[in-house]
Structures are given as C-alpha cells and as structure tokens.
C-alpha cells in the first residue's frame, strides 16, 4: 500500500511542473499568434487562418465523437449550410457583412434542430451514414437554388467584400482576427463546457450511457444539445471559411474530403477525446501537407493509412497515448480517474 | 480412475480485482463433482476459466491429459469439455431443434444424437420447431443441457441449472443425470441448491470468496462444516 501512494505522489509532482510549463508555452504561442498581422506575411496569415478553421472544426467533431459518442461523417452539412446562409444573408438581407457571420451560425443551429430530430432516429454507424445523407440533401438543394448560383455557385459581390474594411491590409487583419477568435473560442468553449456540470454529464455518457441514465442524466437531451451547439459553431466556421474564399459552390461547401475526412484525420491522429489532441493534429496535418504537397492521390492514401494505423495500434491517438503515459494535461478537465 | 480435469493454484482476475486465489481442483473420469458456494464466491468465474472464456495463459489447467491454459474456447470444446451456461443462453433466432444441432458444431463422435436427447427429455419433442426461447424455464434448461450433450463431451459443466426453476422442475431435470452418466460423461455441477448438489455428487467443493473452503464427499461432511464453509461464520471446531 505504501509503495502505491508514493509512486502516485511522485508522478503527480512531476506532471504538475510539466503541466505549468506546457500551459505557459501555449499562452506564449497564443499571444504571439494574436500579434501575427505584425510579423507574418500575407501567405503565412492565410495559412494560419486555414489552420484556425480546421482547429475549430476539429474541436467540434471531437466534441461530438470523442465526448458524446456521436460519430458523424456529415459535418460538411453544417459547414456548407453556414457558408450558404452567410452568403444569402449578406447578399439579400442587407445586414452588415460581419454581422451575417454570427447570424448564419444561429440560423444553422436552428436548422440543426429538426435535422437532429431526424438523425437521432438512427444509432451508431447508421447515425453516421444518416448524417452523410443529410449533407447530401443540403448539397442537392443548394445545387437547385438558382438565386445562389445553383450548381455553379456564387461569388461574394465586391462591394460587400470591400465593406469589411477600407484597405486590403485592413480586411486581412479583420479576417485574421475573426479566424483567431473562432479558434480560441472553440478551445476555450469546449474546455469550459467540459469543466461544467454539462461536462460531467457528458463524461458519464461517454463512459456508460446506461449507467448515466440510471443516475438521472437525461442523455438524450444532453446529446441533442451538443449536436445543435456544435452544428451552430461549425456553421460559424463555415461562414468564415467561405467569406475568406469569397466564393461558394455546392461541391466545395459540402465536400466530404475537406470538411470530414481531413477533420477526422486531424482528431484521430492528434488524439480523440482530448482538447489538446486536435491542436496537435492540426500541426501534424499542416506539416504533412507541406511535405506531401505534390503527391496527389498518394497524399490521401497515406492519410487514410495513418488513420487506420492509429485505430489498429492505439486508438487514443498521439496525445492520448502521451497523456496516459506521462499523466499530462494542458487543459485539465479534472473529472477523470484514469 | 483416470484424472480427467486438474487445476493447480488457479488464479483469475477482472482487471485489478482478484476473483480466484489458488484453486486446486480435480475431476476423475466417471465422477460427478459439485461446487457450492454463495453468490460472488467465484464459482462461475471458475467455469469460465475452464472453458476458455477468461484468460488463463501460464496457469496450470489440464484436461484429458492436455494443458488447456490459454487455449481458445472452441478448441477446448473440441477436446470434449462442454458447458451449460448460466442463464441458459439459448439462441432466439434458432428453433429448439436447431439449438440442439448447433451444439454438435465441434463434430465429436459419440453416443449423443437428437434421438437420444429427445429420449431423456421427451417434453421437447412437441416443441422442436418452436423458437428456442418460446418455452418454459424448465424446458429451456433441458434444451441447454441437450445442446451441450450433442457435442458428446467427456466432461459436462452445468452452471446453476436450478436457477429460477420450481422444485419439481429441478427434480425432473436432475433425473436425467444418471442417464448422462451411463453414457460415459463425467459431470461438474455448480449449484446454489445445496440439497440437490449433495444428492447427486460423488464429491463436493465449497467456494468462498475465491478460495476452496471445504472439500469432501457428501457422506463425510457435516451440516455445520458446510454452513461454515459456505458463509464463513462461526469458529473452527
């Protein structure tokens, strides 16, 4: 008995220092990124914005699959929906372009309510494919919507794009800070949610849904709430993504490869069920993309193989394995016993 | 008598929790052995270890002259060790007759055929095309036993076959035991019904909290000894 508590104390002490160091590192990097428009070039800023978008999408997918047990391969439904609603609101409703972003997010969340109600009639892997069908329905409807360009899509009118800021640099800065805010919000939001009462309920659901029900957790309501919230935030990210691209088409908006395959890759390799995992995953993903830029199809084949490999070898992913071995946590959620 | 089954210092764990501590156990050919003990004593865990449903790598378990430690369940079954699982576990998608037939999936030669099973359990004949679970508890138990017999086992393990059944039904089922013994199958019963266990067994073991707390023949053990071994109450005489 004495040996056990001694080892535990030693392990905890080491990780407390490491934890503080890692948190400090994260804060320093975050502050550096906050001032990026001052030290980074235009191309680098675009890369960062893309990384921020993927980080937000990854945190949301992780929230669904890693913490709530809802595996979705239809995330692209809300990316595209957010994008299209943003374009529709910006072009037709007359509200300021920047306000159209959160407005589109809220509208996406509202539409997620009935789609969630339908999707929740399925379970497990069939739920996953059901989310894909829903995404396809959205894509086909968007291709029929002639007011938004139908199958060929639509570009953001130049005056609207210019209304964001007076100069090109100004516009770059505004967009950068929107992306930065979305990324920071995604991490802090998920962290906050998991540390709250809702988070405890979710961890219980993930560990054992039946047990959670038996102690009074309304699992269905909790899962539905998470589904709608993540849909809304995914829509928010989608709005930004297509604002940045200045053009939207059904193919791009509802692309399975971009908004689901890549996102899943990021979460799974980085470490599913952890907040740090998607951050690590984004870094690895972009590093690999730099290396494999000219590989074409081989890049995707490699990606798929790595994802399969992670599932076969250690499904907790890189951060999950590190965390378990060295008892690490940059964003401690605090409830877990293992 | 040849030794059919032997374990030495058998241990079993569920994660960090130890369920069995050093079990020494034997069954000789032709014997009927009973294990009694209260809930949680480790009786079912022991049977699951024997049949390969729990990991036993590196342990000392011998059956029919071979080490079966760490062996896959279907291979152990093919050596002639069959179990009537706790709760019967009949297959609902199969008829009564199909449940019996599937017991013969190991393709062992021997005296047990559908005809033989229907002979010792005649109630089942009229129900053979019913879905496996559309029967009374007692009839389901008969199907479960018949299913195990269809594999022509050398040793039949019966896990709590009296559970949830009325006394008369239990008696009816145990009447099949002599017929099973006649056909050359040795039997190991795990029983909560101590009276039934004593009535049918050549030797009994009592388990308590993962250990063997008593062993002997029904004739040689007293009620007081059994009570102490079962519940762990009272002081050693």
């Amino acid at each position: 008995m004495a040996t056990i508590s001694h080892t535990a104390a030693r392990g905890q002490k080491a990780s407390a220092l490491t934890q503080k160091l890692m948190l400090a590192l994260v804060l320093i990097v975050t502050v550096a990124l906050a001032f990026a428009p001052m030290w980074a070039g235009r191309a680098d800023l675009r890369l960062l914005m893309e990384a921020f978008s993927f980080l937000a999408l990854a945190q949301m997918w992780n929230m669904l699959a890693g913490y709530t047990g809802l595996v979705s391969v239809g995330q692209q439904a809300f990316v595209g929906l957010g994008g299209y609603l943003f374009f529709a609101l910006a072009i037709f409703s007359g509200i300021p372009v920047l306000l159209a972003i959160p407005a589109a997010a809220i509208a996406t969340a509202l539409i997620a309510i009935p789609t969630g109600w339908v999707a929740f009639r399925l379970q497990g892997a069939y739920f996953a494919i059901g989310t894909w069908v829903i995404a396809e329905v959205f894509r086909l409807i968007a291709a029929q919507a002639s007011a938004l360009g139908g199958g060929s899509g639509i570009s953001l009118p130049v005056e609207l794009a210019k209304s964001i800021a007076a100069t090109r640099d100004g516009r770059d800065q505004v967009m950068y800070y929107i992306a930065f805010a979305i990324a920071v919000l995604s991490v802090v939001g998920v962290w906050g949610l998991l540390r709250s009462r809702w988070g405890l309920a979710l961890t219980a659901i993930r560990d054992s849904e039946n047990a959670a029900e038996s102690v009074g957790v309304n699992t269905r309501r909790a899962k539905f709430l998470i589904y709608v919230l993540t849909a809304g935030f995914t829509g928010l990210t989608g709005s930004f993504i297509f604002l940045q691209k200045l053009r939207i088409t059904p193919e791009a908006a509802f692309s399975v490869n971009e908004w689901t395959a890549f996102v899943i890759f990021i979460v799974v390799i980085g470490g599913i069920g952890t907040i740090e995992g998607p951050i690590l995953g984004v870094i690895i993903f972009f590093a690999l993309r730099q290396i494999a830029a000219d590989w074409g199809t081989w890049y995707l084949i490699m990606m798929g193989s790595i994802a399969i490999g992670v599932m076969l070898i250690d499904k907790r992913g890189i951060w999950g394995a590190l965390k378990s071995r060295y008892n690490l946590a940059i964003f401690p959620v605090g409830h877990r016993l293992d | 008598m040849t030794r059919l089954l032997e374990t030495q210092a058998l241990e079993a764990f569920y994660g960090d929790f130890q369920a069995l501590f050093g079990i020494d156990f034997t069954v000789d050919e032709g014997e009927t052995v009973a294990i009694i003990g209260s809930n949680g004593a480790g009786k079912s865990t022991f049977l699951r270890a024997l049949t390969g449903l729990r990991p036993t790598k590196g342990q000392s378990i011998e059956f029919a002259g071979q080490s079966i430690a760490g062996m896959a369940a279907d291979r152990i079954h093919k050596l002639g060790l069959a179990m009537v699982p706790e709760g019967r576990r009949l297959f609902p998608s199969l008829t009564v007759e199909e449940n019996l037939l599937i017991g013969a999936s190991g393709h062992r030669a021997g005296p047990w055929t559908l005809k033989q099973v229907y002979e010792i359990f005649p109630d089942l004949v009229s129900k053979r095309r019913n879905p496996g679970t559309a029967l009374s508890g007692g009839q389901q138990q008969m199907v479960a036993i018949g299913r195990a017999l269809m594999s022509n086992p050398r040793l039949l393990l019966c896990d709590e076959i009296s559970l949830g059944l009325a006394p008369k039904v239990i008696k009816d089922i145990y009447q099949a035991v002599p017929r099973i013994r006649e056909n050359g199958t040795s039997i190991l019963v795990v029983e909560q019904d101590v009276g039934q266990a004593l009535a049918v067994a050549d030797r009994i073991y009592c388990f308590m909290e993962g250990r063997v707390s008593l062993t002997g023949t029904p004739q040689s053990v007293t009620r007081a000894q059994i009570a102490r071994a079962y519940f762990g109450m009272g002081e050693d005489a």
Partner: protein
Amino acid sequence: MVWINALVQGVLLGGLYALFAAGLSLMFGVMRFVNIAHGDFIVVAAYLMLTFVVTWGLNPIIGVALVVILLGIAGYANQRFVLNRVLGKDILPPILVTFGMSIIIQNALLEVFSADSQKLQTGWLDTSSISFGHNVAIGVLPLMMFIAAVAAIGLLQLVFYRTSLGRLLRATSDDPEIVPLMGGNNAHIFAIATMLASLVVAVAGIFLAMKTNFDPTAGPARLLFAFEAVIIGGLGNIWGTLLGGIILGVAQTIGAQIDAGYQILAGHLAFLIVLIVRPTGLFPKMKG
C-alpha cells in the same frame, strides 16, 4: 402512361439497389458491423470486370467468375486479418477504419484508372427490351438485375436457414459470446459472413459496370443508396431490403420523371420520410 413506365423502371432499378444493399444488410445482421467502404468495393468489382473483359479481352463468363472469386477472397481476408481486430463495443474504430479504407480505395482507383467516367459496353444487352403495350418497355438488362437480386437474396436465405453454416451465422448474430462454447470459431464465422457479402458485392459491381457510367468516386453514392434501402426495408430483414430497394428505385424514377435533376434528391426524401414516420423501417426484425 409515362408514370406506369416510371413505376416499372423504378421497380427494376430497385433490384440493383437491393443488390447494393444485401451485403450491407448481411454484415450488419451477423456482426452489427457497417462497412463504410461498402460502395467502394462495389466500384472495385466494376473496375475489375472492366479490366478483365475489355483490357484483357477475357470471356465475360470467365470475367464474372474471376471477379466473384477475387472479391470473395478479399472479403474473407479483409475481415479475418483487419476488420476482426476492430470489432467490439466501441463503434468508432470500425467506422474510422472503413472510412479510411474508402479514401484509400477511391484514390488508388484514381491512380490506376484515372478520373474518367467508364462503362462496360455490352452491345445487344444495352439496347434490348421487351415491350408491354404502347408505353411500357422492360429492358433486358434491368430485368436481369432484378432477377439476380431476387436470386441472390433467395440463395442467402437458403444458406441462413437450411445449412449448418447458416445456423452458426444466425447464432453468432444472437449471442457471439456463447458460440465458441459450441465449437464455433468466431474469427472464421465473421470472415465467412463478409465473404458471402462480398460475393453479392461482386455481382452488384458487375451490374453497375454494365448499367451506368462510373468513376473512382462513385462508391459513396452507392453506399448511401444501399444504406437507404436497408433502413427503409427494416433492419435484419433481407427480403425487406429488396422492398426497400424497390421503394427507393421508384421514388427516384418518379422524381426523375418530374425533373431530371430531382432523381437522387427524391430518393433521399423518400428515405427521410420513412425515417420520420417509421424509424425502424417497414419490416424490421432487429434493433439498431
């Protein structure tokens, strides 16, 4: 009258969708396993048929036999050595592994065959039809597809209900933990189930090659159709899957009759309606 024709074409199309779906239904029934790469394997079969018959010039009957045998072996091996390792209570690994396979297969096909749309030309089979009255004509190929679907499902039912292998498959579907206690080897049984599903996938792929233009990315759409047919028909009921395919096919052809661009959307909407009104499907035999 055009509507009657659309109905008939839809029923026949349903045969193809039932072929797409039967394998998916089987694997879910026995193992509670959903293979997201299911549609991609159908496309692989289509490309193999194309390669054997067109590129290598083999006799079509030999081509069919080769495709069926190869897919059967690949299905067995894939299940036995890869997919068995991720079977279990956690739903995530099977979904992610098969999703990864889907991406790999699509890109491998892209690498080998290019993105061009292809079709297996069958000459007389493409154009032959049987006429019923003025406005209804039944193509020989669609009729063959429908008959093949019924035959495939009938054969699978035969295996499941009249063979000892089928007994084991049904028992495994009920209670896989107890099956080894009967002398059954789960690893092998699961692989046999996938092998049977792969045989049907092979036939489905061969018909796909003959009926429509396909390209390396055609897999996911087939998966969605198969999935919809299974859900509409009801889980665990393979004849229900045939009915589900027919309903899907009819919804699509009627949608196409209204406007060519509405075909796929109409199918999805029919699926969603069934999901809303009868979430367990029309004739379910098991729960999801």
